[in-house]
């Protein structure tokens, strides 16, 4: 069928596909709280009392609308973590995400769901499930998830 070997080619495209995602009323409230008051709010299910962070409209388990916002702590217990060493294209920026970086699932005091955020520590040997971590805020807060810089380990004796 092919009398000579043609090269196998690929064509590349660098499409930028921009979106404006709505944060909605519930997410918007948390962002505003982060910026103005340096605090984290969740939302409580009227049926099962589960407190979700970030707040959202529906409790999936109960399929019920939630409207009771509750403040949760800036401190919590590290439920799990990883330190990422491989680099990849960050869809947020279109550039390679800097590595290594640590992030974890944190159960904030007063919340039932976990909260995903960066960890100060990026050496996995120094991280341990079950330790207490605390949110460290940026000095200039702009109204963003990243107003919290990261969560850092709370050493014994740190005032809460």
């Amino acid at each position, binding site marked *: 069928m092919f009398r000579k070997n043609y090269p*196998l*080619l*690929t064509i590349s*495209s660098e*499409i930028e596909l921009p*979106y404006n*995602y709505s*944060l909605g009323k519930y*997410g918007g409230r948390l962002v505003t709280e982060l910026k103005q008051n340096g605090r984290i709010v969740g939302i409580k299910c009227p049926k099962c009392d589960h407190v*979700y*962070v*970030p707040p*959202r409209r529906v409790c*999936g388990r109960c399929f019920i609308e939630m409207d009771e916002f509750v403040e949760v702590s800036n401190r919590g217990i590290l*439920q*799990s*973590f*990883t*330190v*990422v*060493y*491989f680099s*990849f*294209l*960050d*869809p*947020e920026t279109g550039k390679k*995400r800097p590595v290594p970086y640590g*992030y*974890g*699932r944190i159960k904030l005091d007063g919340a039932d*769901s*976990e*909260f*995903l*955020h*960066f960890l100060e520590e990026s050496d*996995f040997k120094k991280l341990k*499930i*079950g330790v207490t971590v605390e949110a460290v805020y940026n000095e200039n807060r702009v109204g963003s*998830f*990243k107003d919290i810089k990261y969560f850092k380990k709370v050493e014994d004796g740190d005032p809460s």
Partner: protein
Amino acid sequence: MGRRVAIVGTGQTYHKSSRKDVNGVELIQEATSRALEDAGLTRKDIDAVVIGNMDHFEGINYVDTWSVDGNGGLYKPVMKVTTGGTTGTTVAIAGYYHVASGLFDTVLAIGWEKNSESDTTAAIITCSDPYWERPTFGGAVAGLAGTACEYMYKYGITERDAALVAVRDRKNALKNPYAHLRKQITVEEVLVSPMLAYPIKLLDICPRTDGACAVIFASEDKAKKIADKPAWIHQVSSRHNYTFLTDIERSGRMPTLYEACMEVYKNAGIRDPLHELDVVEMYTPSSFAGLVWIDALGVCDEGEAVRLVSDGVTEMSGEFPINPSGGVISTNCIGATGLIRVAEAAMQVSGKAGEHQIEGAKLALATGFGGCFWSDVLLIGSPRPN
């Protein structure tokens, strides 16, 4: 369960990290042709097509209409279903319901992916909440790393324990001509391979693969005519419970897989899956998941999976063989991955698995994993279901 439905043919492409010799449509056509050939059918015999993949891996919108030349669906009903990693099993379940509805007799189900055509991690990251999760989330590898870390902490499991899973699957892959990675590895090699996201190393995780799989579902009347030994669908179940990665209940067994398995066992009357199931094709994206998911199959106490693996129970020669095909750790063309589990399970109970055949396999479980820790399960067997 409604009308009886059976798998009467399966086809896979040769899976590689990059299939530059074909475009996506030609890749799909390759798997479709093999499935038709396996069943002894032609395009004319197909009443409807179901296809699935993940859009952002190739950047093609409306894949069902785009691939019509390769999927054989010209002037036929074609539908796309997509649920992330579970896409392949979701496609299979949709193929089943197409026939079970009584509206179609012979249905072609296709899963495919050309992972070489984009940055897989970048594409997967966009599955998470754009505001709350994307900035931190490091894709499938990092998400699975978090689970692995937690499992190690909870049950005192070591990286060495997990490596056994990768070694087993890669050994099995040597017997599967379609597998992508066909080279024996050792526990030591797994342990010293580059750290990707603690505690997951390069040889703990599935590869990125170009490939496609096609499976033909048929009604009882047709199945009896087409196949000597149809692979009957006994049960199907799905649980896609979560929106946020942080909402998953982490206290017990992997919840969606456990729930789906329990539903399937209950409806099929299975009481002792460890002894009643002959083989499992499990969607095992990482070596650690290969332990965590065993707990969720309900075949051992929580945290005991490592014992089954280290005792050789899950080897091809063992009592409860897992992934004789080499599994996902050897081949991972994401939209096809779940469907390959189904195809392999069907091949086992039809006695068509060749070198990696489990002798006398009658009842097989195929699982899918994806999305936000979601699961699909199919129970497939050679005896006709009641």
